[in-house]
């Protein structure tokens, strides 16, 4: 019974982690069809923001949850203006350019801060599930993931900005004819996605070491989940995270986290044969 409880907790945390690391990527891909290969490095920047601001004496919660999305959002904004906007519609070129950014950021942070692993203390303690101990931080991740999903859903569904976002996504020309400026919308959507990546980095900083190469540990799972999710940003991310998170956590629990990732990848590769457009490419097509 205790074991089931612990396993359940692990699965929920695993799913929440996937939601967090995928949402920003999903927003950028869903809106602009840009696969941001620098996503992992945006998370890395978020994590560094958390580490450095915490060392500078900022409250741990602020340095984890507030500063990273702000800073990385601004970085995303700058990159979109200086680089990405010239490449919209050229999908391979955007991948190459963002990969260049990814390498560049890794190299830059290694040059500035050295190739060492830093850490942020976990701000909450542990609790026990029967015989087993578990970290309360898992709950923080779950809350952050649910909050981001709900906030994005509310933004897309109930605000004017969300309506304009969805309209631009469906038909940029028609939106432009109605007085919307698609380049501005793309710019803001890219910044929004970057901010979500920064948030993920900040939230995950305490449980993963913070180093220039840390992004590589997350991107594999994040990309697979975005592909698996399909065109609907919120529903797709949620559903794919649940499916892949479940598989990943269960297999990791039985074997090692590495084999868990391998199982995740194998599932995804078989799945693209059956559902090439992702889960929401076939089911729940009208969802957000």
């Amino acid at each position, binding site marked *: 019974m205790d074991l089931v409880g612990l396993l359940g907790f692990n699965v929920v945390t695993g799913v929440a982690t996937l939601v967090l690391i995928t949402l920003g990527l999903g927003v950028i891909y869903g809106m602009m069809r840009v696969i941001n290969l620098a996503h992992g490095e945006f998370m890395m920047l978020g994590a560094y923001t958390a580490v450095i601001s915490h060392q500078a004496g900022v409250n741990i919660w602020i340095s984890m949850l507030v500063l990273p999305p702000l800073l990385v959002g601004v970085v995303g904004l700058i990159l979109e203006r200086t680089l990405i906007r010239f490449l919209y519609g050229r999908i391979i070129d955007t991948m190459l350019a963002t990969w260049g950014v990814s*390498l560049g950021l890794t190299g830059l942070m290694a040059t500035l801060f050295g190739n060492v692993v830093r850490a942020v203390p976990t701000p909450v303690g542990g609790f026990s599930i029967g015989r087993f101990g578990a970290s309360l931080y898992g709950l923080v991740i779950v809350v952050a993931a649910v909050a981001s999903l709900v906030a994005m859903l509310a933004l897309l569904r109930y605000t004017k900005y969300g309506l304009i976002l969805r309209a631009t996504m469906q038909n940029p020309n028609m939106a432009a004819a109605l007085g919307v400026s698609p380049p501005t919308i793309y710019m803001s959507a890219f910044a929004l996605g970057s901010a979500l990546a920064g948030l993920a980095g900040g939230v995950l900083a305490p449980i993963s070491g913070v180093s220039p190469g840390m992004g590589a540990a997350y991107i594999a799972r994040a990309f697979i989940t975005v592909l698996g999710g399909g065109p609907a940003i919120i529903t797709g991310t949620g559903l794919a995270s649940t499916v892949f998170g479940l598989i990943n956590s269960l297999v990791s629990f039985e074997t090692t986290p590495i084999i868990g990732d391998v199982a995740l990848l194998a599932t995804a590769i078989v799945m*693209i044969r059956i559902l090439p457009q992702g889960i929401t490419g076939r089911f729940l097509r009208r969802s957000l």
Partner: protein
Amino acid sequence: MKAGLIAMVVAGLALMVGLPQVLDLFGIVQMTVFVAMAMFALSQGFLWGFGGIMSFGQAAFFGIGGYAYAVTALNMGDSTVAVMIAVAAPMIFAALLGYFMFYGRISDAYIGVITLTVSVILFELINSTSGSAYHIGSAELGGFNGIPGVPPLNFPGDPSSPLDPEQTWYAAMGTLILVYILLRAILASRFGRVVVAIRENETRAMLLGYDPRLYKLMTFVIAAGIAGMAGCLFTNWGGFISPTVFGLTMSAQVIIYVLVGGLGTLIGPILGAVAIQYLMIEAGSQNVVDPNLGLGVVLVAFVLLVPQGIVPTIRDKLLPLRKSTRRDLQATETAEARQ
């Protein structure tokens, strides 16, 4: 066409024979790794420039080739079969992976992402195999530390006579020339023409009765075999292999070789590989700036400013007007087809 091929082969043979006369042993060993990288670049250049398939994880096949060679050579003590397995193993893996990708008819972007992910996860997987529990036959995989003491190439079928560094150079350069001729032959054949036709316009090729899925899969498998051979040479060069061969930097480097050298040519990737390798070694001797930063800047700059690469840009500048108009026409057609 024929004259160009002969000129290239003659130039290659001249280098193969000439370099050992002018370079010392260290220089020859250095050039051997350049050749391994050039072959790796040919694999990516063929796949991307002619097949129109963008693999962001070609290092996966390079690494599988290297590991397959190391494991087989350690187990058998003879490199003859090991070289064959180093080429065959990545091809089999590519056939499996390619089946799911191409027969799922996923978009180019998804192919990029899946290949990238595969190489990342292979890296993690091999990285986690430290300890004596992980072994294939008598070869321990060694996790992050890799496999040291891989036996060098030997004369086919005769394990008692390993090649010295100079002979390894001849073998490597000779293989590169053979691979180049092979690719030229493929591109001149009916198969190669269909592959290029599919790159230009997949729908039209399909309507003419060709199955793009099968042709893409075969292109992917051929490229994987070449990458495997390159990995085998690379392992030979150092007598050592570690999981970094699967790393993102490896995949990024080979893309940069092709992008800098030139898309849609075979000589471009070779030149790009040698030039970038040379610059990386120069850059590696300073410790101020991380080399990744330089790679990233080069990648971004070329995508934005010289998306065709150096060789095609120069060629288009030098070609007579008649030919370039024809190429422009083709380019417009392609652009229209893509829209």
